[in-house]
């Protein structure tokens, strides 16, 4: 929303439809790790994807990058990049290249950087490979990028080794590499969780400014709902491979509709009694309920065990997957 769509009806940068990834299970049905993900991100929009460990956040990012880990496979689903369907972005004949059009930043920036190459070499390698620039031009562009990510003394840092950088500086370099080829989409996979609070704020402020400035679409993956409250335009909640709620930031934080979203908020609350109210007693039935969240849900009813809820529209730009959402009550 930060940068309104410049042209009416312009296609979103990335659109995922019914993306489903499954892992085979020995002697059983395959496990659906991502179940029918529908998600679109516009240029200049920052979407926060929130979920717990094992919800499928990283898997979603890796699926977009065509790098599904392990023996998981894409069962069905389509992806559009700027309105054009793409089958697999890594394929040679695909016009969309990972690293150039879709870039990713991961946590622990020091592992991300090659310890035996200087910072400058690593940035220019990416630029030269993707943009086919000459050495001098690539170096000039790398310098611009280091300036853009507010690294002090960029000329000298170009020849620095990764071990000479602090955690925050290393993460800035990784951001510089990600944005060097003007990607359409940047995915940040928990990129700031390893940083200290003061540095986390600096890096997030910088990332947000760059996303708005360049009109990049951004997917900010985190388990910390507090980060999304201050930096994202839209919040998407993932639970066990399903999108359970998708809402604009303000509407979401004024009134989260899905019981899981409320539980996530309750986890931050400073009140033990209110927190207990939102924590469910275990379910006694042996059969696995149709709604994936039913086991932990305080609002569950017999219907939730029998019938899986669909992700339905409840307001413009707002979707919830729940039979009994928490409605606004005066």
């Amino acid at each position, binding site marked *: 929303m930060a940068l309104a769509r410049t042209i009416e009806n312009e296609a979103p940068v990335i659109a995922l439809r019914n993306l489903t990834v499954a892992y085979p299970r020995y002697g059983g049905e395959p496990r659906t790790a991502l179940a029918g993900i529908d998600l679109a991100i516009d240029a200049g929009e920052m979407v926060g994807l929130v979920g717990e460990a094992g919800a499928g956040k990283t898997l979603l990012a890796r699926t977009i990058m065509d790098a599904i880990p392990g023996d998981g496979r894409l069962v069905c689903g389509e992806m559009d990049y700027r309105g054009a369907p793409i089958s697999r972005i890594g394929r040679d004949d695909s016009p969309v290249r990972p690293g150039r059009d879709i870039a990713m930043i991961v946590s622990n920036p020091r592992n991300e950087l090659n310890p035996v190459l200087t910072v400058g070499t690593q940035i220019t390698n990416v630029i030269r490979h993707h943009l086919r620039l000459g050495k001098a031009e690539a170096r000039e562009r790398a310098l611009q990028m280091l300036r853009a990510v507010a690294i002090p003394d960029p000329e000298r840092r170009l020849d620095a080794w990764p071990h000479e950088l602090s955690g925050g500086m290393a993460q800035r370099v990784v951001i510089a590499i990600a944005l060097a080829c003007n990607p359409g989409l940047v995915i940040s996979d928990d990129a700031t969780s390893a940083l200290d*609070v003061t540095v986390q704020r600096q890096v997030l402020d910088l990332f947000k400014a760059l996303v708005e400035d360049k009109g990049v679409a951004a997917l900010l993956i985190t388990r910390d709902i507090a980060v999304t409250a201050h930096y994202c335009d839209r919040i998407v909640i993932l639970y066990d491979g399903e999108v359970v709620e998708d809402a604009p930031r303000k509407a979401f934080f004024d009134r989260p509709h899905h019981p899981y979203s409320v539980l996530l908020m309750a986890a931050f*609350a400073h009140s033990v009694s209110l927190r207990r109210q939102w924590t469910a007693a275990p379910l006694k039935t042996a059969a696995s309920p149709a709604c994936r969240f039913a086991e932990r849900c305080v609002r569950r009813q017999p219907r939730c065990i029998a019938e899986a809820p669909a992700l339905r529209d409840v307001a413009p730009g707002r979707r919830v997957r729940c039979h009994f959402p928490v409605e606004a009550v005066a």
Partner: protein
Amino acid sequence: MTLLTVSGLVKHFAISGSAKLVQALNGVDLEIARGETLALVGESGSGKTTVGRCVVGLIEATKGSIVFDGEPMTTARNIRHPEVRGRIQLLFQEPMESFNPRETIARAMMEPLIYLGVSGPDRVKRLREVLALIGISERVAESLPSDLSPGLLQRAAIGRAIMSKPDLLVLDEPTSALDPTSRAEIVDLLIRLQAETGIAYLFISHDLSTVRFLSSRITVLYLGSVMETGPAEEVCARPRHPYSVGLMASVLLPHPSLKAPERLKLEGEIPSPVDLPPGCPLASRCPFVEPACRTAKPPAEYPAKGHLVHCINHEKVAALDESIDQFSEFRAISDRMLSVGAPTAPAWAG
């Protein structure tokens, strides 16, 4: 009644192949009363973990004294002394790494009692008591660590730490490896345990929101020196040290309207603790820095009873305070939000 007094704690680590020293702690003072929670906050590299490790006796301090329950800890009266053994326990950050993967939870929990000379039947009896206290069934306790979620395993780790009925539990970032919902459960458990057993906590964390909720007093550490110590609500709502102000301003609370006011911005990052210059350790990042800050360490000043600050400009810092207590404001917002739609009857159980 004071349980633990740490004064002038200094810890230097030698760097191999160099005459330089890592100055991890440079004169830390703190005090914990029986049954209270003191939080130790600061960025990574500030020396929080080193303090915890010195207190439990995992490493020996270079200088300074630690007085536990009225008696100083010395080489003779150390953590293994019969009077002290089992009375100070430590909880680690990563539950997955602090359990033996080949040993059941129950066995791991009973192990500390072996070294205290508790008989087999008494060990089992105590195990049952503790399992009831932490809310883990005996069936779950018979499983291996790999069968448990990190949150449940951390719960078991807390159980193991309290098996010997310690007076003091040192918690080193106990929740930072966990998901928010598991973190909330662990925090609730810690609060309940303290109410029921009167155990004191030294809570080491960089998660200021949890710290504000859990602790009675906060000590802010920076590069191995105490910057500020005071009651939790005072330090959070009216911090007197520029570093505390910067730290509070970078806290992100989960509501868009709760953007901390940028009263003060700390530039850059924490410098290396090797060969620290004399004077205030914050001098390189502080917007209030004066020549005097760079020559000598600021003395302790007491702006209020029980509130200590090491800053010569603490009055200026207090003056820029708009006294916006974002934590109280957040509490009001979340209480309002969570009380809507909360079920009045327990969830349908099937």
